């Protein structure tokens, strides 16, 4: 370990002496303090928190990610060029120790910078939401919706697959399916329509959603309902409705009538202590409009959010996820720098970063059969090119997919709990598995590389 720490110390000193740290610190401070002051929110507390946390922390991650990849590439490649590595390699040091030392030095430095940025962002958030500059409504929103960690619970869906399959069979019997629509596509379409219907409340009608509350549901604290809906009214006029909450086989515990403008995310707070000690939670919405249909989003359009932890814990978990991702990126840079000279290593690393960012597109391309056949006018078996690309994207998605997500910034800034299990998963996949693979590859390259070639 002494050798690894010695090399880590050199990597740290190198960064500090090259003034990259000062530059990074200046840029980070500029972003952390400047961004919330220059970007204007929509005037709500949610908008303000979104900017201070989501945008700022997101920018901090992007800056540190680019810096750590760059510094990682430089850590080995510039020492090969400057010949300093020749002296290190002639000492009794294993290639893995050199790799780990460089990686650790960068990680310590970026960890400190991330912690500093996190502390400044937290301080700034507290300062800009202090009691003297916020209204009572703002403070409730901050306490109950934003600066908190709530666990989302989705409504339990009824069995949609069985009626969807029955409907498909009926259409097939009637030979009512268009010839260019495959049964799979038709089933998906029917299922999607039925699901949307479950989240649709027609004029004057009522709809109930049942929430199988988990055993750990905190019923003593307040409960938040979060909903996203649109209406059939193109004029976006407010829709009038009544919300009722009760527990299964229990009396009504909450009722509120209000008029809400469609679009965006909206909330409804059920005061603390309203729910009984057990039983499934049932939420009912009654559409009081004569001609307007209310359409809730089938994807997270209505959720119950129960208190599950503190905002500080959530922030810490987010910083941990960012830190683990930085660890992976540092590994990527050090490995690329072990193989290539500085400009080539930086170019290769940035290309790989781009590839990782395109992971979502690759997933779609790999899964959506139609993507490759869209140029055909009529149904057509996939061509060899279609099959090749689909397999290529699938293979790439297998490698890059685990490096995607989870997105922690959006939940953090909207008060949604970031689970320890998601943090553990990021740690296991990106921090241990992928970084471990890069350690093995990088060490192998370093052990095989001739560091005193005349061309170096």
């Amino acid at each position, binding site marked *: 370990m002494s*050798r690894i720490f010695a090399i880590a110390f050199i990597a740290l000193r190198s960064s500090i002496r090259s003034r990259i740290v000062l530059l990074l610190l200046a840029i980070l401070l500029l972003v952390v303090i400047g961004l919330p002051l220059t970007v204007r929110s929509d005037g709500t507390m949610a908008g303000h928190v979104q900017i201070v946390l989501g945008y700022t922390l997101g920018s901090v991650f992007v800056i540190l990610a680019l810096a750590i990849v760059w510094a990682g590439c430089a850590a080995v490649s510039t020492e090969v060029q*400057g*010949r300093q590595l020749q*002296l290190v390699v*002639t000492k009794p040091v294993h290639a893995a120790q050199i790799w780990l030392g460089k990686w650790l030095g960068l990680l310590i430095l970026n960890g400190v910078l991330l912690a500093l940025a996190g502390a400044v962002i937290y301080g700034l958030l507290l300062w800009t939401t202090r009691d003297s500059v916020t209204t009572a409504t703002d403070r409730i929103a901050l306490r109950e919706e934003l600066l908190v960690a709530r666990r989302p619970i989705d409504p339990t869906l009824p069995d949609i697959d069985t009626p969807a399959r029955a409907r498909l069979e009926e259409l097939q019997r009637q030979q009512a399916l268009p010839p260019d629509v495959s049964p799979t596509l038709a089933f998906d379409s029917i299922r999607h329509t039925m699901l949307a219907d479950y989240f649709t409340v027609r004029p004057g009608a009522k709809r109930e959603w049942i929430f199988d509350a988990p055993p750990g549901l905190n019923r003593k604290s307040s409960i938040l309902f979060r909903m996203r809906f649109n209406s059939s009214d193109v004029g976006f006029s407010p829709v009038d409705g009544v919300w009722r909450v009760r527990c299964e086989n229990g009396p009504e515990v909450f009722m509120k009538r209000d008029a809400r403008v469609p679009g965006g995310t909206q909330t409804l707070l059920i005061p603390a202590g309203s729910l009984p000690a057990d039983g499934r939670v049932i939420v009912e919405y009654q559409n009081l409009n004569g001609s307007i249909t209310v359409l809730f989003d089938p994807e997270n359009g209505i959720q119950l959010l129960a208190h599950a932890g503190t905002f500080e814990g959530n922030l810490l978990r987010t910083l941990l996820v960012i830190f683990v991702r930085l660890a992976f990126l540092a590994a990527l840079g050090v490995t690329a720098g072990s193989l290539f000279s500085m400009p080539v290593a930086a170019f290769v690393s940035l290309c790989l970063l781009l590839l990782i960012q395109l992971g979502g597109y690759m997933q779609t391309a790999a899964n959506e059969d139609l993507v490759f056949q869209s140029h055909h006018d009529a149904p057509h078996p996939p061509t060899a090119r279609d099959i090749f690309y689909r397999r290529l994207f699938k293979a790439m998605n297998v490698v890059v997919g685990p490096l995607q997500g989870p997105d922690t910034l959006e939940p953090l800034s909207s008060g949604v709990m970031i689970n320890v299990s998601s943090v553990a998963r990021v740690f296991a996949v990106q921090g241990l598995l992928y970084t471990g693979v890069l350690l093995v590859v990088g060490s192998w390259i370093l052990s095989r590389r001739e560091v005193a070639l005349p061309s170096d």
Partner: protein
Amino acid sequence: MAEHDPIIRAAELTKVFRDFWHRPKVRAVDHISFEVTRGEVFGLLGPNGSGKSTTIKMILGLLHPSHGELTVLGHPPRDVKSKARVGYLPEESYLYPYLTSEETLDFYGRLFDITAAQRRERVSQLLDMIGLTHARHRVVGEFSKGMARRIGLAQALINDPDLIVLDEPTSGLDPIGCRQMKDLIRTLANRGKTVLLSSHLLADVEDVCDRIAILYNGRIQASGPIRDLLEERTRQRITFPELPADALQRVLASLREIVGRELEVEHPRRDLEQFFLEVVEKARRSTTEQSGVGPSDRLAEYLSSSSAGRHE
């Protein structure tokens, strides 16, 4: 590794540099074989581009042989077991310019897993030995070439090595520094250390080496003990104190009777290096104001006892 086994053994050692497409580009070292035994100073001599540095870099594991066998202290060159007992002074300063002298030596000491207390002690002794105690907190990047060279030498000795590899050891040093370097090499050899050096400065090699190999175009052109290689066995020289003229004539007459041909009589000349050092030493003693930057004549204490054979 037995006591009499060679410290370095190279057999048919070859290095071919290849281009991006793996096509042979340059044959820098071409089937050379040699051995370096314990306690000797072995010199690789040759003009620029003759393959000296390439050979040294293969011995240090910085380059991989294309062909042939190479063992260092009984192990392959890239084995950490052999690296733990080797000290290396490269041709140029490959030090970290942002570290101080003390940090530099401490860093390399840590790479040998030397304890903190031992490192502190060795760093102090080495800085004293190379005369840079006063500059222990100065960053190496500010040093002159000679000072950086001395730090380079100190880092090569931090692990009390059994084999010391010196690539152009006197490069960048002034005549005093050169003399001190050569004295140090001899002292280390007397303490049981094995020294392999490369140089194109013939006088340096002649002064310190026990055996040499002369390389040209990647091949060994001549090798052996330096005394054997340079000795002219068909001629002899007799040196004695200055004689009065008549006594000298009598001696010459006697010798002519035996040798039977013309004799050469001349005063022996000191070499320029020796003369220069005497002048500087005299000037140093007469100067009242001392700069105090000169190296001490003492070897670092921990290097003073022979370590040869203790790692078996």
